[in-house]
């Protein structure tokens, strides 16, 4: 599965469009990480726990998106965009969407 965020696949010709595919996941971190983060909030700096969590979540969202594309018979997803929103206290939604296409 080829995933790009440009509106074509560099070096390949697009044969067919299959429309929008998307994947999302809502994650919350466990209390331990939360406590660590609130300590870190005092001194500033990188919150490694959150970085990892969001990275994992984003991979999951991308995976769900590519699964959906595969079900449509596509072999690439183009023009992928990411979005983040915090839906509830301590939980974040990661969202990925793109266009499923068939390339040669």
């Amino acid at each position: 599965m080829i995933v790009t965020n440009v509106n074509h696949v560099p070096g390949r010709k697009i044969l067919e469009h299959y429309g929008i595919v998307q994947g999302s996941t809502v994650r919350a971190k466990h209390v331990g990480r939360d406590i660590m983060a609130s300590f870190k909030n005092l001194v500033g700096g990188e919150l490694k726990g959150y970085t990892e969590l969001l990275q994992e979540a984003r991979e999951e969202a991308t995976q769900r998106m590519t699964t959906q594309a595969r079900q449509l018979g596509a072999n690439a997803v183009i023009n992928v965009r990411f979005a983040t929103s915090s839906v509830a206290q301590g939980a974040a939604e990661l969202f990925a969407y793109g266009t499923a296409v068939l390339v040669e």
Partner: protein
Amino acid sequence: MEFIVNHLDLSLFAVLVTVGYAAGTFAERRHYASILTRERAQRQFQVMNAEAYFAEGRVKNSFMVSGSAVISIDYFKRLLAILRNIFGGRVKAYESLVDRARREAILRMKEEALTRGADMVVNLRLETAAIGNAANRRGRIGSVEVLAYGTAVTLNKT
């Protein structure tokens, strides 16, 4: 001594501000030093935020790369920002926060692209989100997440 015991809340506040200032300033200075050396090391690597079109047969393959960083502000700077809200104007404390997060995210994306053998990154996009417990309460941003993503391209050597 008696003063400290009698005004425990006040002394705790003073300690938090001092610790925040000292540790925050130190962390920021170290972070900027590391950002500068890494940016210098990677300056040959091309990244652009426009879409690129290549001649036929030029591109070997392409894949997506991303990098992200969650950076939090310290207690002292948060206080500064609250004070700044009264008078208005540039909030320098937050400016350096988002600047650091953005540059760090781009650097991480470049590192991923380099380790996976890419020659350049096209169509870079940046996404910023306020996260953490305070994200839902208006006007209380504690930490920001910046995500940088783009399409890495491997070229055929001519």
